[in-house]
């Protein structure tokens, strides 16, 4: 088959189509051949019957004591009217000609040996005045005038019986063949398609595998035996990759975890030092490091544990707690946070601790970008959403696709952020099947909208 056809399905279908075509040609040919054979044997029997018929009308002439043919008028007419179509010759046991349809037949038969009791079939080519092909039989038959050699032949080109059988076959049976082939092909294409479905499912699954879903494997059930080794091998490869991934993540988590105690000690030591400019600069730097370690731990936690997102969470109450806990830090930085929107509880399904983390990161991000003396506004929407808006420079449209990537930082970003906050938010949003959008806040600033599925 064509080596350039890459699709297994197409290749199988094309090959099957070729197979069907050859098979149906063979079948039709075979049928025609056997129909012709049947027609031939019917014709042979007809000839033998005719020979017997003729022999029956041969009697011994009283006068000359010689065999004599006495055909009834109807038969006489039938034979001699179509003298070129049907020919016969009858000889007696001594080889003398009794009767022949035409003199040429008589002359020709005279040279033949006497016939046997077993019928012997023969063909005559280009015989007689019309130069036709004949097929005939020669047989010894008993008659009232003793044993006879009877020869009967029929012009074969004009055998109407064979023709009618063939015609009947072609018109009555052979037209079934093309639709049959077509239906069989359709069935074959369908079944090829069906048998390849598990492979399609496997490839769909494969395309869903990424860093966030390393536990996914290709389905092995229903995969064709021929493809199974490939699928199993891919799954084993994925197992090994996952192991590597898990080790990597555990390392990150452990590293962050181990950094915590020394950082606590450094933080505490710095707090005990009398403040000059150097110390407070150091303090700020250690503060950033603390934040980074905290975020790394948060990322590691999100990566390692499947989050339970099935609990009812009151967004209003949660927002109040988060805003309340962050307000003092914002004040120290000469910024404020306000909570607006729904006055009553807004319950969604999710993980309260994680949603609080997400909100905290969004507020931190907003506080970092809004100017001193301005307000970050957190709004709880009754339909199960929280928005965080600042009045900073906003987020350029070309940056928006990247802000949720780990360690991504905008061009104008200040030094403190590690670029993990929004990535954490995104992970939490994903785990909740929630959505997050970024837009411009009028008259200036950025606005993040977090929408959850309501309980």
């Amino acid at each position, binding site marked *: 088959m064509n080596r350039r056809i890459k699709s297994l399905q197409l290749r199988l279908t094309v090959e099957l189509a070729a197979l069907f075509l050859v098979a149906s040609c063979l079948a039709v040919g075979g049928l025609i051949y056997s129909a012709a054979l049947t027609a031939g044997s019917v014709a042979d029997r007809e000839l033998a019957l005719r020979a017997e018929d003729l022999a029956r009308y041969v009697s011994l002439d009283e006068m000359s004591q010689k065999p004599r043919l006495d055909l009834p008028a109807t038969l006489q007419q039938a034979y001699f009217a179509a003298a070129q179509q049907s020919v016969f010759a009858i000889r007696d046991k001594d080889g003398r000609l009794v009767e022949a349809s035409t003199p040429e037949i008589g002359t020709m038969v005279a040279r033949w040996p006497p016939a046997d009791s077993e019928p012997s079939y023969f063909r005559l080519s280009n015989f007689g005045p019309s130069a036709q092909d004949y097929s005939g039989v020669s047989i010894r038959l008993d008659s009232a005038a003793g044993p006879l050699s009877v020869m009967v032949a029929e012009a074969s080109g004009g055998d109407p019986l064979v023709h009618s059988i063939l015609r009947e076959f072609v018109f009555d049976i052979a037209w079934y063949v093309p639709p049959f082939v077509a239906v069989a092909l359709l069935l074959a294409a369908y079944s090829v398609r069906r048998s390849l479905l598990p492979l399609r499912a496997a490839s769909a699954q494969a395309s869903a595998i990424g860093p966030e879903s390393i536990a996914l494997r290709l389905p092995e059930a229903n995969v064709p035996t021929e493809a199974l080794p490939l699928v199993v091998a891919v799954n084993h490869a994925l197992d090994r990759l996952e192991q590597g991934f898990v080790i990597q993540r555990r390392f990150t*988590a452990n590293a962050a*975890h181990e950094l*915590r*105690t020394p*950082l*606590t*000690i450094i*933080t*505490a*030591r710095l*707090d*005990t030092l009398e403040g000059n400019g150097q110390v407070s600069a150091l303090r700020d730097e250690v*503060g950033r490091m*603390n934040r980074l*370690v*905290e975020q790394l*731990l*948060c990322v*590691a*936690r999100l990566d390692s544990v499947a989050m339970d997102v099935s609990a009812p969470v009151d967004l209003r109450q949660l927002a*109040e707690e988060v*805003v*309340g*806990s962050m*307000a*003092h830090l914002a*004040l*120290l930085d000469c910024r*404020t*946070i*306000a*909570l*607006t*929107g729904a006055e009553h509880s807004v319950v969604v399904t999710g993980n309260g*601790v994680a949603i609080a983390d997400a909100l905290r990161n969004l507020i931190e991000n907003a506080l970092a970008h809004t100017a001193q003396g301005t*307000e970050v506004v*957190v709004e709880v929407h009754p339909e199960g959403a929280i928005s965080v808006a600042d009045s900073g420079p906003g987020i350029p449209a070309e940056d928006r696709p990247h802000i949720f990537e780990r360690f991504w930082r905008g061009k104008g970003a200040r030094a403190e952020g590690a670029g993990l906050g929004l990535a954490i938010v995104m992970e939490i949003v994903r785990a909740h099947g929630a959505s997050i959008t970024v837009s411009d806040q009028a008259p200036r600033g950025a606005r993040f909208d977090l929408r959850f599925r309501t309980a």
Partner: protein
Amino acid sequence: MRLLVIEDEDRLSGILKSKLGEIGFTVDIAASAADATAALELINYDAAVLDLGLPDGDGLAVLTAARQAGKALPILILTARDAVEDRVAGLNAGADDYLTKPFAMTELVARIKALLRRPGGVLGMTLEAGNVRLDTIGRELTIGGIPTRLSRRELAILEQMMRRFGRIVPKAVPEEKLYGIDEEPDSNPIPVHVHHLRRQLEAAGANLGIHTIRGVGYILADTTA
């Protein structure tokens, strides 16, 4: 004021001891769960700082044992940031507050002070913040050493704010809790009282300011900071 710090990392406990000592606490260190339980039985501490990760057992066991022995002292737990369950379990087992590592020393001090300022706490009788001093028993207020008069309700609000100095006072604190259940219903909403209180603090030269956190509540904070 005597504090028990239960922490196995001796570099950290050493700093805690010196820093807390500087601001007037007497600090004992217990480096294991067994030491901690023994110390808590022997001495009536005013508060305890408990690290949940101890070498010889779960810090939670220390907490549970103390509460079962009828110890009512405020206990602040230190937990790992990535152990949310620890945090929740700690609060359920009777901890009064929690702090995650790494923490800032100022934050720890503020939290401990807030715990001690609770009614019944060792700092809960006379509240001090900045140049403001409130005797919660005698209901006497001095600002910069000068006695100042406030209405009862304003005083009640100020007391709440001073007990939670530097932290949010939710605007939704039920009025009964604020004023006592036996008082006649108040005609003025809390924001009006807060407004008056703010103006009087300013007028009296207090170095404290009341910040409004829109939609959430109020924070009393140093204006000098």
